[in-house]
């Protein structure tokens, strides 16, 4: 275990960025996914924000902050040359209507059948924070998840046979990028696409609740 160097949050984001080709239309959820755009510098990828922005650019400098221009996390952004702006119904038509080549979301848990839970810890939570995740999850052509492989406290698995948290959507995840591996959701379960150096198959399986398929 001590030989493994898990990826940090930037490392997971950079690993995802490697797999995004030029020309894709991509939505990045809050958390680790927002950093993916930092690592897509050498090619043209169109980033969407659910509040109606097509073509998010690099973060503004202090002097260049436009108070009218924010992303889904209400953080200040810039636009790329060639950007477009739409209203909220059209923005979610983009999310829901199959126009995004890719959405990258964080998650609490992903199940081997592609179920994702990322909005509530319990069905009885006093308040609910749904936002746009459910629309994005059902509508994007591809859904990839960026998350830690295990819980920080206790080390419990987050790649499950069945999600224990309330679902965001059923059967929608194609790929999971964690701090130690990249997994693909297949009809037979999680298939391993990539592992960090030094990680053994036994260790990866021991940290994953669902059975793994080796290619």
């Amino acid at each position, binding site marked *: 275990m001590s030989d493994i160097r898990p990826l940090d949050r930037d490392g997971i984001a950079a690993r995802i960025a490697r797999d995004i080709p030029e020309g894709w239309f991509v939505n990045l959820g809050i958390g680790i996914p927002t950093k993916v755009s930092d690592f897509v510098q050498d090619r043209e990828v169109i980033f969407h*924000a*659910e*509040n*109606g*922005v097509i073509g998010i650019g690099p973060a503004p400098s202090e002097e260049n902050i*436009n*108070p*009218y*221009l*924010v*992303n889904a996390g*209400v953080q200040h952004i810039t*636009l790329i040359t060639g950007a477009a*702006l*739409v*209203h*909220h*119904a059209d*923005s*979610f038509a983009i*999310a*829901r209507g199959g126009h995004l080549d890719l959405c990258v979301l964080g998650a609490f848990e992903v199940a081997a059948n592609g179920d994702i839970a990322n909005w509530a810890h319990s*069905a009885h939570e*006093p*308040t*609910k*924070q*749904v*936002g*746009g*995740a*459910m*629309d*994005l999850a*059902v*509508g994007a052509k591809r859904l990839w998840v960026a998350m830690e492989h295990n819980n920080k406290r206790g080390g419990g698995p987050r790649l499950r046979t069945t999600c224990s948290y*309330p*679902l*965001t*959507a*059923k059967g929608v995840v194609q790929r999971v990028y964690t701090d130690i591996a990249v997994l693909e959701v297949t009809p037979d379960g999680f298939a391993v696409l990539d592992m960090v150096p030094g990680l053994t198959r036994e260790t990866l399986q021991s940290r994953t609740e669902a059975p793994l398929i080796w290619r």
Partner: protein
Amino acid sequence: MIDKFVPSLALAVAGIQDGATVLAAGFGPGTPATLMRGLAEQGARDLTLVMNAGGRDEGPIADLLSTGHIRNLICSFVRADSVAGRLFAKGDLELEIVPQGTLAERIRAAGAGVQAFYTPTAADTILAEGRETRTINGRLCLLEYPIFADVALIDAWQADRFGNLTHRDSARNFNPIMAMAAKTTIVQTAHVVDLGAIQPEHVHTAGVFVQRVLHVPV
């Protein structure tokens, strides 16, 4: 002569009744903060407020909720640590959480005269419990109804006397769709422009949806 401009905040929010359903636009930018303050001061009670989010501890949403005039909040998320979250926890505020895309589409449908629609969003989640679903094209879908409203509070960058509006950058968000969905659409605009100054192809919200415009310089 058609002239939608009103000379004061009091006149802008006059006539909003107790029990009204009020849409308030905004996603950070684009929030009609002055009109919301006017609504709080105007004193209408027992309101249903429809917004994207429940706000935090400060700001126009928190101030409006703190009046106790809002009975029911319809939005896509609420932070536990906020005025909204605490009012809900105490039982002083009813809460309906709607996925953000569904919220936008329910508002759009109301303005468009669409009486119901099916969406795959949330169909296989706990939000669908006890509600009508249908399998369409092989996907489980959830039946949703429009959110018809008495009043929409709108933020604009420019407005002319017909009520044609532009919205700046991402301040657009819910403004064009909420403007269509309410019986009375009330706008606060940063800039007043002459009729014809906004090119027809550059109008973001057509004046035909707008009833009152208040000039609130930035």
